[in-house]
C-alpha cells in the first residue's frame, strides 16, 4: 500500500511547482558585521524575498562541550543564549517533551506564512479559475452545440446498462465527492470569505460541522473508489477502438458516432482520472487525517531526486529535509490542487451525463437506456449484449 501511495505521489509530483528547490546563494561579504546578518539580509526579509540562512543556521555552539555544571565554576553549557535560540530557530536543538507526536519537538518553523499566502493567493485563484473556467466553457459549448440528441428513431426498448451495485457505487462516489468538495472549500477559504460575511460565531459552527463531515465522509469516498475500480476496470482497459473514437472527437461535433464498447475513450479518461487523482487525493487525505503519522513528501522528493527528474527540468534537487509541519502543509496543498483538477473534470462529466446529452442520465438513474441511444453511442457494446442474449436464449 505504501509503495502504491509513493508511486501515486511520484507520478503527480512531476507537476508540482518547485516550492522546495533551493537556489545556490551568492557569496555575501559579511566582514562589516563580523559574519552576522547584513542590512541586505534584513531588507530581503522585509520584502518577503528568500534569504539564505546557511551562514548562521549551523552556528549553534557546542552543547556537549561545556564543563559539567557539577564542576566548580561549571558553565551553563557549550552554547550561548543566541546559539540556543538559533538552534531552536533552525530546528536543530535537542528538545525533550512528553508530547508524543513528531511535531512536538519543533518549536519554531517558518513556512506557515508562505503556506497561508499560497492558499489564499495562487491556490484559490487558479483552483477556482480552473473550475469556473470549465463551467464557462461548458455553457459556451451548450450554446454552440446544444443538447446532443438521439439521432435515430427511438425503439421503446430498454437495455440494462448498469446494475444496481454499479449505480450504488457511482452515487456513493458522486455524493461523497460533492459533499467533500463543498466542505473542503469551506475549510480552505472560509476564514477569508465566510468570517467577513457571517461573523466568527456563525463561521465557527459551520467550520466545525464542515470538518466533521469532511473527515468522516472521506471513508465513503475511499470505499466507493475501490468499488468503482473493481467493478469497471476491465471495461476501461485501452482498446484499439479508442484511437478511432479520439480521432473523430467522439462524434461530438457531428460526423457520425464512432463505434465504442461499454465505455468510450472519453469515459475511460474520466474513469482513470477518478481512480488516479481520487487515489492521490485519498493518499494525501489519509496523511491529513492522521497528522504527522504518514509523511509522504520528503520520501517522494528523495525518489524524484534519485530519478534525476528535478535536474532534468533544470531545477535544483528538491528539499528532502522537511519539518513535520511542512510535510502537512504540502499534503494539504497537494490535496487541494488535485481536488480542483478532479473537480474540473467531474464538472464536465456531470454536464454530459445530464443536460448535455439526451438519454445519458437514464444509465445511472434507472440503469436502463434506450436501445437507440446505446446503438449510437456504444454500438459494439450493444452487439455484445445482443449476442449474449441470443446465446442465453439459444441455450435455454
Amino acid at each position, binding site marked *: 500500500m505504501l509503495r502504491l501511495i509513493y508511486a501515486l505521489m511520484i507520478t503527480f509530483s512531476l507537476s508540482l511547482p518547485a516550492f522546495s528547490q533551493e537556489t545556490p546563494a551568492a557569496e555575501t561579504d559579511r566582514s562589516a558585521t563580523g559574519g552576522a546578518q547584513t542590512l541586505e539580509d534584513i531588507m530581503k526579509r522585509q520584502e518577503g524575498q528568500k534569504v539564505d540562512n546557511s551562514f548562521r543556521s549551523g552556528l549553534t555552539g557546542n552543547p556537549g562541550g561545556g564543563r559539567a555544571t557539577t564542576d566548580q565554576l561549571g558553565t551553563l553549557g557549550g552554547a550561548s543564549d543566541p546559539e540556543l535560540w538559533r538552534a531552536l530557530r533552525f530546528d536543530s536543538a535537542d528538545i525533550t517533551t512528553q508530547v508524543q507526536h513528531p511535531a512536538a519537538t519543533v518549536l519554531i518553523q517558518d513556512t506557515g506564512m508562505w503556506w497561508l499566502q499560497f492558499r489564499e493567493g495562487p491556490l484559490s485563484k487558479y483552483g477556482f479559475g480552473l473550475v469556473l473556467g470549465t463551467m464557462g466553457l461548458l455553457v459556451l459549448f451548450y450554446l454552440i452545440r446544444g443538447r446532443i440528441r438521439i439521432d435515430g428513431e427511438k425503439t421503446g426498448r430498454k437495455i440494462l446498462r448498469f446494475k444496481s451495485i454499479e449505480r450504488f457505487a457511482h452515487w456513493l462516489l458522486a455524493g461523497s465527492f460533492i459533499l467533500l468538495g463543498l466542505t473542503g472549500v469551506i475549510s480552505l477559504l472560509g476564514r477569508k470569505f465566510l468570517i467577513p460575511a457571517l461573523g466568527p460565531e456563525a463561521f465557527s459552527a459551520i467550520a466545525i460541522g464542515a470538518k466533521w463531515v469532511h473527515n468522516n465522509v472521506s471513508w465513503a469516498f475511499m470505499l466507493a473508489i475501490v468499488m468503482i475500480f473493481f467493478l469497471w476496470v476491465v471495461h476501461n482497459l485501452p482498446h484499439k477502438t479508442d484511437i478511432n473514437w479520439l480521432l473523430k472527437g467522439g462524434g461530438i461535433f457531428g460526423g457520425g458516432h464512432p463505434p465504442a464498447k461499454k465505455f468510450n475513450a472519453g469515459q475511460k479518461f474520466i474513469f482513470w482520472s477518478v481512480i488516479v487523482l481520487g487515489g492521490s487525493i485519498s493518499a494525501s487525505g489519509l496523511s491529513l487525517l492522521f497528522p504527522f503519522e504518514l509523511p509522504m513528501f520528503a520520501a517522494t522528493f528523495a525518489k524524484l531526486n534519485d530519478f534525476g527528474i528535478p535536474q532534468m527540468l533544470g531545477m535544483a534537487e528538491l528539499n528532502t529535509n522537511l519539518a513535520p509541519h511542512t510535510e502537512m502543509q504540502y499534503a494539504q496543498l497537494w490535496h487541494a490542487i488535485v481536488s480542483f483538477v478532479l473537480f474540473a473534470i467531474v464538472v464536465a462529466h456531470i454536464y454530459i451525463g445530464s443536460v448535455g446529452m439526451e438519454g445519458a442520465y437514464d444509465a445511472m438513474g434507472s*440503469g436502463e437506456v434506450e436501445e437507440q441511444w446505446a446503438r449510437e453511442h456504444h454500438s459494439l457494446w450493444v452487439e455484445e449484449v445482443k449476442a449474449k442474449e441470443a446465446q442465453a436464449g439459444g441455450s435455454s
Partner: protein
Amino acid sequence: MREIILAFAAMAVIAVAASYALPQMGFSSQAQTSGDAVRLD
C-alpha cells in the same frame, strides 16, 4: 432513484460509524499525542 437514496444513506452511516469507531480505536488526537503519564477524560 433507489440506489441514489441507498448510497446517500450508506454515506451517512459510514460517516457516523467512522466518527464513533476511530476514537474508540485510539485514533483521537488527544490519545495520539499524549504520553502514558497523561490521564484523558
